[in-house]
Each structure stands twice: as structure tokens, then as C-alpha cells.
């Protein structure tokens, strides 16, 4: 009997990759994708098989390294959260033009409802943009199976494949049945030595190949079984449910007996014949999809002059946020339950910096200097635990946009005359996307003060190794920050005055300074202490 494991969606993807002959996984941590790579890192099997799995500096470097692995003919996976795909967009889109050699699967974990994110962009749109096949599992087993299938079609059509999941699947656990293990590919260089050389003349040819493959991709999506057409007696409505939305639909029919025809969509480009059949036989169509109205927009068309389509655009389904069984019931017109109210006495409990977090002492000395002397609104910040310092009682930072934007926004703000312009960024975020901005600041001779909060880990996503570890001073020096304006502080209460004084000195300096506040994250510290004690 095949082995059954109880796995998160993320873990199912990781286990599948290990079983499907993966040679290397590349990623930068990002909720809700982090556990895929962590699973491979902790897997004994992966270690025995020699699968490489260290963290990359960012999603772009991860994507490119995976492409290198694919170039060598081996199977590679690259994992990121949805906004990480923006960082990796350049190699991602161009990898569709080069095509794959060894199979390559890009996993993008979307976060509808923004549980831990800055937006709820839908990676299916980027998959379509890159003109590659997109897989969208509805459950953990399908996620597992799709990795095997994904590598297969990636090598069959020499194309990267996008595996799109959402938070709910990534972080939900269910039993998964394993398939027999496949050996890794032997090294096998591309037969066409120019396949990966995107000079315009070559790229034009490659692009035509990619376009020619589009009909193959549709055929795969019509015939391979991840998209299914379920007949129904009542043709007054047809339902299209994609990915995990299919489960919310089914939840409303405990006996699994739906009167309407249903298309379960889990693979793109969309299965044209199935859509055609539904469009022809049903009076109206309801589209349930988690994320953007990607399918709905396509079916509705710009002119919207066909039959009635219900979904996020027409209002039967909310325009934003994650779906759930009740939203599906309401859209189907079968919602009739009475729901208890949450008592008004229940107060919000937002996340906050941990007791003993070194960031607390850092934002305290920043506040101590900035608040009495300057009005607020001068601290450009970044993505990490310290973003929580925007909230009371600190209210230190004034921006959080994307990875690395602290330093570069401070440059622009300083150019516009904001004095002082302060950037606050974590160590891991700095090596992800802050270093190049710092080079801009040096070349621009920007009068900004950059505070790098060095807690020696990628804390927000659960304490993964930071690419910055042991490199920060050298990077700053190497980029051209003057040595005397690179100050390393210990963010502890007993030094608050001294730290504030140094911060003030650097604010007064009319050039670029970097203050590194160095103290390990309280979470990783206590984790290590626990491991030492052996419990």
C-alpha cells in the first residue's frame, strides 16, 4: 500500500518534489510559501538524495539559480509568495522564452485577504502574462500529484510551469498518498546551444515556439484530468469553480449531489471545449475563484454582451478577500443559516513585537531622537517584524511598501528636501533588496541615515537563516559607505542614551550613514536555548 502522510499543502508540494526527482529547490522565505523549502531542508530523504535547498538572497536570484539547474538538465523548483513573483518577474517571464531543459516548477503562494501581505495579487495573471501552463490544486493530494505532472509537461514542452496555491491550501493539513520515487535526471546540456541566449534574433524564434505551444497547453488542460466537467440536470445555472473554491462549492452539498453542471478548473490555459459546452447548455454561469476574477473576466469579455455571468465583477461574490463556504452559498442563493454574533466585548488583538524583541530598543532610541526635535513622518521602513512599530505604542515608522523600499524612498524623500530622511530595514531584507538602493544612496551622496536592524535571522517568517549574516559591515563598506559612518550598536535598554546620541550624530552628518543595531531575535535565541537543553 502506498504510504499516506498528513501534510500541509506546502509540505505536500515539497514531498512531491523530493519524490519526483528534484535536484534543487531555491527560495526566499515568504508567508505562505516558506514551509515548502523548510520541509526539504529538514527532510532526511532529501539529504540522502543530495538535493540542494539553501535559502537564496531573494526571489530573483532563486529563480535564476533554478533556471541554471534546469539548463543542466536537472529538475528544479523555485518557491515564493505572490509578491516575490514580482521580484522574480524578469527571469520568470524570460524563462518562458528560453524554455526549460530539466523540468522547472515555479510555486507562487498567493494570499487572498492579505493575512500576511501587502496586496492580494493573483499569480494566475502572471502565469498568463508569461504564457506558460498554470496549475492550481484544490487539495493537498492534487498539489502532490501536480508536482509530478508539472515536471512531466515542463520537460515535454520545454516550458516552466507555474504552480499557484493560496494561503488556505498552503497552511492546511490533510492526508496525502505518495507515489513511487523517481530518480533525479542525469546532467544533460541543452541540445540547442543557443536556447538560453536571448539575443533578439534568437528570442524572436524562441517566442514563436512558445506561441506555437499554446495550443498544446490548452490540449493538456482539456485532457489530463485536472479540469473536469461534471454533468448536471438543472441547466438554469452552470458553475465554474477553480482551485480551492471548488471545495467551498462542494461543502454546500453534503451528499455531493449538485443539480447544476460544474467545471472544476485546476489547470490553465482554460479548457476551451469545456467552457464552450457550459456556455451553450446553461442559462447563467457562476464563477467561483479565490483571488482576482481571472476566469470571470475572460468569459465575460470586454464587451460583456453575452449571457449572464455572476462572480466578483458582477457583485454576487465580494470583489476582494478570500472565499469561504458561506460566500459560495450566498452566490448560489441557498444561504439560510442564522449566524450568531460575536459579542461586542471582544477586543482586537493585533500582532505585536515580542517581549524582549531587540527591535523595541531600536525603535525607542529612534523615537527618543526624532520625536522631540522633528515632527513625525520621516522614517521610511520596510518589510519585517519591525513594520509592527507603525502601531502604538511606538508609531515610529511611516512607510512599508515592498522589500527594500525603505532606503530608496528615503533617497527620493531627501532629494525632495525632507530632513532628516531615515530608512529602517532588517538584515535579511537589506540583502534581499536593500544593497542596490544603498549603492544609489552612495552615488547620489544622499544625506540619509540607514538603520539596519540586525537580528541575525529572517524573523517574520519563522527564523530562517539570513543571507546577511556576517556580511553587513563589509557590504556597506564595499558599496562605498565611509567606515567612520558605519556604526554598530547594541540595542539594549541600558544603552538607550548612548545609542540615541550616536543616532543623533549620524543624523547631523550631511551624507550617507549606516547604523547597524545588532542583537539576535528573541525567538531564535530561545529556540536555540531549548535545543541545547534538549527538549
Amino acid at each position, binding site marked *: 500500500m502506498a504510504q499516506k502522510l498528513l501534510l500541509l499543502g506546502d509540505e505536500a508540494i515539497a514531498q512531491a518534489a523530493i519524490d519526483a526527482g528534484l535536484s534543487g529547490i531555491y527560495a526566499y522565505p515568504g508567508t505562505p510559501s516558506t514551509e515548502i523549502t523548510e520541509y526539504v531542508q529538514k527532510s532526511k530523504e532529501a539529504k540522502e538524495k543530495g538535493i540542494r535547498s539553501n535559502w537564496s538572497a531573494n526571489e530573483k536570484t532563486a529563480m535564476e539559480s533554478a533556471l541554471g539547474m534546469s539548463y543542466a538538465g536537472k529538475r528544479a523548483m523555485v518557491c515564493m509568495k505572490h509578491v516575490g513573483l514580482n521580484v522574480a518577474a524578469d527571469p520568470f517571464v524570460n524563462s518562458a522564452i528560453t524554455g526549460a531543459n530539466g523540468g522547472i516548477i515555479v510555486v507562487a503562494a498567493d494570499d487572498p485577504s492579505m493575512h500576511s501581505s501587502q496586496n492580494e495579487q493573483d499569480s494566475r495573471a502572471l502565469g498568463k502574462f508569461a504564457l506558460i501552463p498554470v496549475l492550481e490544486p484544490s487539495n493537498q493530494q492534487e498539489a502532490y500529484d501536480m508536482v509530478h505532472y508539472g515536471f512531466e509537461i515542463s520537460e515535454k514542452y520545454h516550458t516552466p510551469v507555474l504552480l499557484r496555491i493560496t494561503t488556505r491550501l498552503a497552511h492546511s493539513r490533510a492526508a496525502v498518498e505518495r507515489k513511487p520515487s523517481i530518480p533525479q535526471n542525469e546532467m544533460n546540456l541543452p541540445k540547442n546551444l543557443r536556447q538560453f541566449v536571448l539575443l533578439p534574433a534568437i528570442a524572436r524564434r524562441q517566442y514563436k515556439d512558445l506561441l506555437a505551444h499554446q495550443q498544446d497547453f490548452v490540449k493538456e488542460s482539456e485532457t489530463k484530468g485536472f479540469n473536469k466537467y461534471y454533468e448536471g440536470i438543472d441547466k438554469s445555472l452552470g458553475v465554474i469553480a477553480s482551485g480551492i473554491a471548488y471545495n467551498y462549492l462542494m461543502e454546500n452539498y453534503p451528499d455531493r449531489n449538485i443539480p447544476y453542471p460544474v467545471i472544476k478548473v485546476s489547470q490553465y490555459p482554460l479548457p476551451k471545449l469545456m467552457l464552450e459546452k457550459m456556455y451553450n447548455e446553461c442559462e447563467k454561469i457562476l464563477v467561483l475563484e479565490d483571488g482576482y476574477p481571472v476566469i470571470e473576466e475572460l468569459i465575460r469579455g470586454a464587451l460583456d454582451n453575452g449571457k449572464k455571468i455572476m462572480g466578483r465583477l458582477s457583485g454576487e461574490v465580494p470583489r476582494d478577500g478570500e472565499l*469561504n463556504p458561506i460566500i459560495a452559498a450566498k452566490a448560489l442563493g441557498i444561504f439560510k443559516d442564522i449566524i*450568531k454574533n460575536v459579542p461586542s466585548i471582544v477586543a482586537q488583538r493585533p500582532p505585536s513585537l*515580542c517581549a524582549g524583541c531587540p527591535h523595541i530598543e531600536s525603535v525607542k532610541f529612534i523615537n527618543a531622537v526624532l520625536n522631540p526635535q522633528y515632527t513625525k513622518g520621516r522614517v521610511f521602513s520596510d518589510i519585517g517584524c519591525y513594520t509592527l512599530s507603525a502601531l502604538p505604542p511606538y508609531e515610529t515608522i511611516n512607510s512599508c511598501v515592498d522589500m527594500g523600499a525603505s532606503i530608496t524612498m528615503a533617497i527620493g524623500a531627501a532629494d525632495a528636501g525632507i530632513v532628516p530622511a531615515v530608512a529602517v530595514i532588517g538584515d535579511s531584507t537589506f540583502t534581499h533588496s536593500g544593497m542596490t538602493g544603498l549603492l544609489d544612496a552612495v552615488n547620489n551622496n544622499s544625506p540619509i541615515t540607514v538603520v539596519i536592524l540586525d537580528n541575525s535571522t529572517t524573523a517574520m517568517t519563522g527564523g530562517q537563516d539570513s543571507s546577511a549574516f556576517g556580511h553587513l559591515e563589509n557590504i556597506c563598506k564595499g558599496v562605498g559607505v565611509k567606515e567612520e559612518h558605519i556604526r554598530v550598536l547594541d540595542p539594549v535598554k541600558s544603552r538607550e542614551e548612548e545609542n540615541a546620541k550616536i543616532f543623533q550624530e549620524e543624523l547631523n552628518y550631511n551624507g550617507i550613514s549606516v547604523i547597524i543595531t545588532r542583537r539576535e531575535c528573541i525567538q531564535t535565541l530561545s529556540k536555540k536555548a531549548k535545543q541545547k537543553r534538549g527538549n
Partner: protein
Amino acid sequence: MKKDIILAGVGGQGILSIAASIGFAAVQAGLFLKQAEVHGMSQRGGDVMSHLRLSDSEIASDLIAFGKADMIISVEPMEALRYLNYLSDDGWIITNTRPFINIPNYPDIELLKSEFKNVPNVVAFDADEEARIIKSPKSMNMIVLGAASPYLDIDFETLKKGVSILFKSKGEAIINSNIAALERGREISLLKEKV
């Protein structure tokens, strides 16, 4: 058989250990299971919850629908109430009554407790105090799980097995103290039922 359970608490209070224990037990019992967890930012001292669904037939949604939960198991009283919109009319609340106060506007605890009077089926007690009494202060979550055990439709021995599997790597002593906590919670719950 179908049990839809909302697990609630504050980040770090151990609801994922409760989920994993029930999960391992459910697998032992041959049940279908889906369990949606919260990871990431909210774990930093914010409210956390998990949807745990058990059934003897295949489960569709990873999320429990509002009004359909058979049980809310909470390690904190305000967090139990936060998810009241999930509870079915005849559902149970099993909750610790010891507040976890990490916000300035935490409501009056007596007012909070009085809210439970509007729910027909409640087992509420100070599980932190019970954990202290049995000299196992870190097992508060297992005491709450023990208190929920009479209503889980999982054989108690199987549940104990689930707890043992969860703590297997931590050694005999840790397993035993967690099992003791589980038994203590069950005892309290059964006593309350008699009253």
C-alpha cells in the same frame, strides 16, 4: 461521524499542539481530516485560530462554515468568544478562563465570563491553575484538550496515543506529564457534567 472544531488562542499558547494531537489520533482512528492553520505575522502575540475537521467520509472545504462548528476549543476566554459566529446552535465551547492580557483595552474578565451564559453548552475553568496544581505549567493546552475529549467522538485511549506521537521526540517524561494533563482535564470536564 463529523466533528468540526475551531481551535482558538493567542500566538504561542499551544493551539497547534492541540490540533496535532487530535490530528494524530484521528489518523489512528482512520478518520478523514483537514486542518487549516495560521502561520506568519499573526503568530506574533496576535489572535490565532485553526479549523479542524474530522469525518468518516471525505471532507470538502478546509474552512468550517459560519454556524457549523460542533465545538470551539479555546485556551483563552476572549478568544473563545471571538469565533462564536462559527458555533452551531447545539455546539460546545471548551475554554480556559484565564485571560491572556497583552493589549491595553482587554475587557473586564467578569463581563467576559458572563457572555458564556448565553451559550447552552460550555465547559469553562481556569486551566492555567489546574496546570499549576499538577506541577506541569506548560501543559495548560493539554488540560483544555482533555476537557474537550468527552465530546470529541474519539476514543480516549486513541487520543492519548495521539499525544504520545506528538511528543515522541521529547522523551518519556514529557509524554507522561502531557498525558497526566490530558487526564486531569478530562476528569474536570466529566465532573462538571455531573453537576
